[in-house]
């Protein structure tokens, strides 16, 4: 108490107004300035404290409070300076100045280590700009996400195929509208229910087991694979469907999405196709029967007639006129012609019945052998035959293709070469599961309007030299190649030779 009294004891000093020669103005400038400074120095800490309190995120708040104390201390020194003009508490003033000095140095000490850290703080403006940018960006991303989401939703909602997502427990967590249409349930009836409601038995009872099995072993029977299964509608009816299932993880939980494609229409189509096929097969059998009757049963009487005519001719001898003999010869000739035609019909029939055997051959050797069968004719006609084929081993319907190729070579020798010169180029190319054979001659060529007709049975086109032929070679070739599952076509123009193209499936 004595200390405090001594602190404010003014007996040893005169008031400042009476110490020295103050003019009125000079004194009041000191007093008012000190008071104003005090007011300001008191306001600043108040504002600062308010700011720090309100913001909450101001960096280095302790330094801020030191600042406040230091400024406030400075303020009190100014207040005391003003008061001293009337109330000379110099001891108190000294204490305040000392306190201010200590607080100031404390602030300095606190500030020094903070400065390097404070320097790293981004400028507020920059910070603001970045913040703005970030906000902008976020808005874009959100818009993009919204758009993407709505697009995704549109795809899923308009998809013809059903899309169902289930969780690891087999509960439906999502189903698109197609699922409702396919199965006859509403979304509300589906969500949260076990997906086995969409299956007939035995899958219905076993599905939980399948799922558990998969979760335990990771052994996929359908997941990631997809296969044909049967779906069960709300009314209990079933339908064939193709189900493919994908798996995904979200937040550590496993989900499965199934895509369901209704196969009802395809099955109906397949059945219709099968019926059509059976009908076709029946027609084929009838045709076969007809061909058989024509080929065999008509041959019988022709053989008889020809035999009887021969005997008649022998027995009649001189009793017949020259004219009679001529007529008999013509009749016999007609019989021969008819027999030949029946023979060709039989040939077609044979091709249609021949069995398809796959054999492995070396492509080049295979072609060479077919060509070699014509060695004598090639030599006689002085035809140059070039073969361009890989040594590759292929599996094809050897006997069918061999016969077809022979017929085409025969055709090329007969119609694509002169009797004493010519060139035939045979090439083979392999591509995927097909072997393409091209047989090119340099003969007179075939008018495009006849291109299809050359493959018709008994069709013979007018040729420059009236080369004899059965009119069956190419028809047989086409049937043989078709029997082997391939096709034959030709490219030709008058005067530019002919190229036959045989496309043969490999196995």
């Amino acid at each position, binding site marked *: 108490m004595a200390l405090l009294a001594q602190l404010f004891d003014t007996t040893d000093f005169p008031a400042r107004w009476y110490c020295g020669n103050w003019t009125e103005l000079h004194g009041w400038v000191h007093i008012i300035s000190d008071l104003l400074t005090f007011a300001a120095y008191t306001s600043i800490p108040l504002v600062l404290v308010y700011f720090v309190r309100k913001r909450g995120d101001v960096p280095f708040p302790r330094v801020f409070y030191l600042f406040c104390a230091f400024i406030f201390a400075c303020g009190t020194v100014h207040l005391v300076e003003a008061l001293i003009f009337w109330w000379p508490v110099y001891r108190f003033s000294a204490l305040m100045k000392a306190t201010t000095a200590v607080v100031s140095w404390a602030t300095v000490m606190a500030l020094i280590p903070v400065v390097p850290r404070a320097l790293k703080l981004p400028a507020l403006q920059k910070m603001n700009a970045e913040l703005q940018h970030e906000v902008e960006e976020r808005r874009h991303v959100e818009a993009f996400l919204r758009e993407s989401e709505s697009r995704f939703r549109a795809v899923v909602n308009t998809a013809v195929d059903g899309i169902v997502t289930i969780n690891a427990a087999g509960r439906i967590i999502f189903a698109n509208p197609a699922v409702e249409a396919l199965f006859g349930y509403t979304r509300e009836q589906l969500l949260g229910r076990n997906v086995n409601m969409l299956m007939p038995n035995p899958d219905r009872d076993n599905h939980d087991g399948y799922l558990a099995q998969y979760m335990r072993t990771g052994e996929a029977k359908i997941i990631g694979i997809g296969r044909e299964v049967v779906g069960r509608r709300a009314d209990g009816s079933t339908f064939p469907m193709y189900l493919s299932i994908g798996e995904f993880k979200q937040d550590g939980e496993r989900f499965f999405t199934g895509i369901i494609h209704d196969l009802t229409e395809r099955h109906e189509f397949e059945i219709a196709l099968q019926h059509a096929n059976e009908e076709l097969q029946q027609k084929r059998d009838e045709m076969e029967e007809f061909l058989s009757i024509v080929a*065999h049963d008509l*041959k*019988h*009487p022709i*053989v*008889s007639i*020809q*035999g*009887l005519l*021969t*005997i008649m001719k022998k027995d009649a001898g001189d009793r017949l006129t020259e004219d009679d003999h001529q007529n008999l010869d013509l009749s*016999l000739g007609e019989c*021969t012609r008819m*027999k030949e035609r029946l*023979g060709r019909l039989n040939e077609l029939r*044979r091709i249609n019945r021949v069995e398809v055997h796959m054999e492995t051959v070396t492509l080049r050797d295979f072609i060479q052998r077919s060509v070699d069968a014509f060695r004598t004719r090639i030599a006689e006609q002085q035809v140059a035959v070039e073969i361009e084929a890989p040594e590759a081993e292929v599996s094809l319907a050897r006997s069918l293709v061999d016969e077809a190729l022979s017929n085409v070579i025969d055709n090329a020798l007969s119609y694509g070469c002169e009797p004493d010169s010519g060139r035939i180029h045979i090439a083979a190319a392999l591509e995927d599961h097909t072997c393409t054979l091209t047989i090119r001659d340099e003969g007179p060529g075939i008018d495009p309007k006849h291109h299809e007709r050359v493959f018709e049975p008994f069709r013979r086109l007018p040729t420059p030299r009236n080369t004899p032929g059965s009119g069956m070679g190419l028809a047989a070739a086409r049937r043989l190649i078709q029997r082997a599952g391939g096709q034959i076509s030709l490219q030709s123009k008058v005067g530019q030779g002919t190229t036959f193209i045989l496309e043969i499936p490999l196995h």
Partner: protein
Amino acid sequence: MLSTRSIQILLVEDDPVHARLIRRALGEQIDGSVVCIEHVADGEAALEHMLGAGHSDDGGEQAGDSPDLVLLDLRLPSIDGFDVLSALRASDTTRRLPVVIVSTSDHETDINRCYGLGANAFVTKSSDFDELTDKMTQLSQFWLHAAELPRN
């Protein structure tokens, strides 16, 4: 001496015109022997002729007449030529009997099947009459001689 010999030929042919033609093709004599042709029109009758009634040869039943040569058509009513051939080859009395198939067929499968069943020759009727005559005569001669060779 030879002129007194006669050759028994059984012709199995359902078409009367073909039968007539084959008769004519064979002529009346082969190697100076008189040709006697017995003609039946179906397989049933042929088997009856050669193997006897019921054509089972397992009970010492009366065996039929064994001809020197059989000319057999393939497509026959009731029992067809293939079955007749099999039956002949299955029976001891006719196992070595020369059988020449005379058919309108020239199918490889038919021909192979006949040889497989034990036919001695196969003649296709579709060839012209003169050729048929030559073939019939040649084959008949060959198989008649072959049948006379010692059998071991």
